[in-house]
């Protein structure tokens, strides 16, 4: 029940963050337009300054999404007798994930202002953080799923319990017929 309320509150917060951004943002917000030379391409153009004013809203919108995603993981891991350890282990994954997202926002703030643009590998720093940071940090949850599968997801004892439930259900339904 508590997790559902947290989930619901996060969704309401997402609506508020989205609504506030749409109501207060400058016209057109921050998306680009058709490239002046090549009509099948788009161009961002000089939107960096406008986007820089919306960094806080973007950070809030993205961070709330991360919170919703982790709430989904908690919901999926929840079962009878689940322990604080499961919750803490999942919540621990939020820190690097949210930090990577905050770094994207911060690095983009610098990207808009700095000349020349700094690179990390083949891409500008904020793009590299998206590609390498936001791809790798959620792998923690994939790893948890693999490593903790027997304890969190389904053990051999759980499987036996399930078989008992199936057997009892078939008897019950046969008697019902």
């Amino acid at each position, binding site marked *: 029940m508590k997790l559902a309320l947290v989930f619901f509150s996060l969704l309401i917060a997402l609506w508020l963050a989205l609504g506030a951004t749409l109501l207060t943002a400058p016209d057109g917000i921050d998306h680009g337009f058709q490239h002046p030379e090549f009509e*099948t391409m788009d161009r961002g153009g000089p939107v960096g300054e406008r986007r820089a004013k919306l960094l806080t809203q973007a950070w809030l919108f993205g961070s709330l999404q991360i919170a919703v995603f982790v709430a*989904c993981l908690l919901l999926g891991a929840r079962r009878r007798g689940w322990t604080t350890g499961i919750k803490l282990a999942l919540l621990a994954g939020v820190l690097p994930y949210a930090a990577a997202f905050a770094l994207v926002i911060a690095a983009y703030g610098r990207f808009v202002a700095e000349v020349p643009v700094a690179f990390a590998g083949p*891409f500008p720093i904020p793009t590299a953080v998206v590609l390498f940071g936001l791809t790798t940090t*959620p792998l923690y949850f*994939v790893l948890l799923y*693999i490593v903790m599968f027997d304890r969190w997801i389904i053990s051999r004892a759980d499987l036996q319990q*399930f078989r008992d439930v*199936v057997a009892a259900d078939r008897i*019950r339904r046969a008697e019902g017929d």
Partner: protein
Amino acid sequence: MEAWRSTVILVCIILYLGMCIGVGLWALRRTKTTKDFFMAGRHLGIMVTSIAVFSSTMSGFGFVGGPGLVYRMGVSSLWIVISTPIGFAISFFLLAKRIRLFAELRDSTSLPDVVQARYGSRAPALLTAIAILLGVLGYLATQILAMARVLQGILSGIDTIGSVRLEYCVLISCAVLVFYCVTGGIIASVYTDVVQGAVMMFAAVLVFFAAMYAVDGGFTAMSRTILEDDPEAIGPWGTLGMFGCLSWYFVFVLGGAGQPHVITKLMMTKNVRDARHMLPISVFGYAITALLWISIGLVMRTLVLQGLHPELPTADAAAPQFLAQYTHPVLAGVVFAGLLAAIMSTADSFLNIGAAAVVHDIPRALLGSSLKNELFWARVATGMIAVVASVFALYTGGLVALLGAFGWGTFAAAIVPTVAIGFNWKRATPLAACVAIIASLLANFTIHFLATNYGLRIPGGIDGGAVSLLLSLTLFIGISLATPRKPLDPAIEAVMDI
């Protein structure tokens, strides 16, 4: 070799299509019951299921539309690609165990079957089946159109064949697709997915290196060329913008758990504990195939900006033109086969779940029982759905685009709350499920209709599917919390405790 480029490509395609027909014939002997046709008898192994999961996710949208998006918008669509690890993790945490256990408990043969078992009510199952059928028709039509256009492009490059009408290309590609889906059902579908997934991975790695060497200086030089023209295009949000990218991230991360053609595969595994190994294999497979998405888009944008390649007629021409002009003919042949594979691996799954909706789910929800001789009617329905989707694809113009765009968002908004959340939360009620599905269909259709016909779009490039998903999730949880809890079937409750 260069002089024979088109012929080499055609030979690769013929070999690939021949393999699909072969798998169909092989699977025919293994398909004896409806459960075999729709659920592969629930005895798929780890590798087969994992590859089927990722190859069904990476559709023609990824192999044709993905590079086109990067060409047009810069790195905006990177946000779709990077949704993979967290998206798959959420799908597996929420569904891999639960949906498989429900399916075994009630011997279910489709997603609406397990929805009916979970909620103890026919209404959410009927609405789920209708949402699936609507999404399938739209999505399948776009896949068929993409498949026919790829074939048309290949055939038109061969002098002795010349220009071929699109209708004939639809006929040829659909004939192969329908053949193996009708004969072998989901067994043919998943085993062709395995070959298709392997071809896609192989093709993506080769294309990645071909793209890297197509521009002097590799990806760094590409970034710098794009940066000089427009810094935002190579910035983290591309030209779409922050809120557009974040809304894509939202709908693709959570939406993965609502794609029926993907999550039904989780019901087909031999052992529920296989999910442990399937998650990393699926993530790895998808990540590898996504290399093609990013690399072709970047290289084509760079080549056009540098004046080394003429402007593309459409953004979606990025992948075909790159393959046609910058790769070895054999590689082009393999990748074109991979491209068809990407499209067909999704289309075959759609045909299967669409047929299940028509002959199994809707009759069961309305009449309380399935059709007699269900296996026969499943085969008929598979063919009929392909015909209807082909007619949609060829003769309804803008409607196909509308329904195609409607596809992913429809599935995400309608199915994520009802299935992904509702299967893990005992408090969820049938009423909330029905309202969420109806609201998601109405919201998605209205948003896309207004955008397509009147140019009215949500400001900031925010994706309509994201808004619909947020709406359906909010309604689902809000209504469940506000209405009395419905008692659960004891066996369902016991399974939800595991």
